[in-house]
């Protein structure tokens, strides 16, 4: 979707404010709790990482831009929990709920380290031959799906060159909507700055995105 999250090339957000490596990781205790709540709730297995990204993108633009990063996360988490009937609005309003037994998939302290170490690889076997090969010229399709996609607006319609073929990966556009992993081949595609920004491009700039096969057409 053409949501507030799709920021490449947008203007008006001001300067970047670097922070040193010694700066606190969390700027308030609640930020750390949001990170941990999001990971624990995700471990229940009711939604995919792609769906959780989409929940953040679906926040109204004024809310998205007016929220700090972890505020975006908690708002999206509340939406996911409601959508999947894990909590009710009445629970949130009351701030308390009826005590229940532990969910069978509740993340235990012991399972945290192995789970983080394992991660969730998204590569999948594919039987179809690649449509494109490194060196091929491709155009990022002009498309404006209402659902989740990982093709940023600033590359749509632009011509670039395939640099690498990464094999099959879970397709976010379906996986975010409960429509299955539908793996597709993933490519790194490199664009000249001029192809993206025209005369306003910085000299010597190239930008790459990682694009699923159906995002691309031969150019």
């Amino acid at each position, binding site marked *: 979707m053409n949501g507030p999250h799709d920021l490449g090339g947008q203007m008006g957000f001001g300067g970047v404010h670097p922070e040193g490596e010694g700066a606190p990781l969390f700027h308030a205790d609640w930020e750390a709790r949001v990170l941990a709540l999001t990971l624990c709730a995700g471990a229940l297995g009711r939604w995919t990482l792609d769906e959780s990204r989409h929940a953040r993108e679906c926040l109204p633009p004024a809310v998205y831009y007016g929220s700090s990063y972890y505020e975006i996360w908690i708002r999206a988490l509340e939406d996911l929990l409601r959508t999947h009937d894990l*909590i009710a609005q009445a629970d949130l309003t009351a701030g308390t709920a009826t005590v229940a037994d532990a969910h069978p998939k509740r993340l235990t302290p012991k399972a945290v380290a192995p789970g983080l170490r394992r991660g969730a*690889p998204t590569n999948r076997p594919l039987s179809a031959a690649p449509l494109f090969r490194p060196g091929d010229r491709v155009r990022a399709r002009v498309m404006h799906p209402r659902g989740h996609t990982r093709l940023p607006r600033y590359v749509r319609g632009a011509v670039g060159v395939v640099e690498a073929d*990464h094999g099959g990966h879970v397709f976010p556009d379906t996986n975010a909507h409960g429509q299955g992993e539908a793996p597709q081949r993933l490519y790194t595609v490199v664009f000249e700055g001029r192809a993206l920004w025209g005369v306003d491009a910085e000299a010597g700039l190239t930008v790459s995105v990682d694009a699923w096969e159906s995002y691309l057409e031969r150019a």
Partner: protein
Amino acid sequence: MPHDHSDHDNHLDPMEARVRALETILTQKGLVDPAAMDRIIETYSEDVGPRNGAQVVARAWDDPDFADWLARDATAAIEAMGFSGRQGEHMQAVFNTGSVHNLVVCTLCSCYPWPVLGLPPVWYKSPAYRSRAVYEPRVVLAEFGVTLPEGQQVRVWDSTAELRYLVIPERPAGSEGLSQAELAALVTRDSMIGAGLPQVPA
């Protein structure tokens, strides 16, 4: 409105109240164990951070065979050093050279290689960085105090899928003969994102 001390004493920041309420509800419902939450926070506060990536870079500087492996199969090479897992399942190392400087961004959210760099800094997640890194990276780099030679190309990697990028900066001049531990101390977090350069030995 009269000044009300008891109200002040009970004041919770609205976000703190909101998060605390959700944690309470999820705990009561048996969906979340606060002790597991503590483990997650400890992991990223204490164990997993940019010193991991610094060790990878230092080894790549010191050991050409490892650098080759890192270039061919970063996921395996990095896992062999004990760093793997969530948000680092598919790693790619990108090497700065005299002709190309690499910079990593996620314009769509905040994708970042957690096992080697930990959680991303605030600026990496900010709309300012996400919007401008792909459009005017040299201007952004100047805000980090980095000015690149005029002829050097800038390659920006937008992390739009599950590949996670680790920039391998160029080994600084004057670092000959240093141990891997001494080399790692020169590697800054920002230099592994491409937003900075490594420190030069004193």
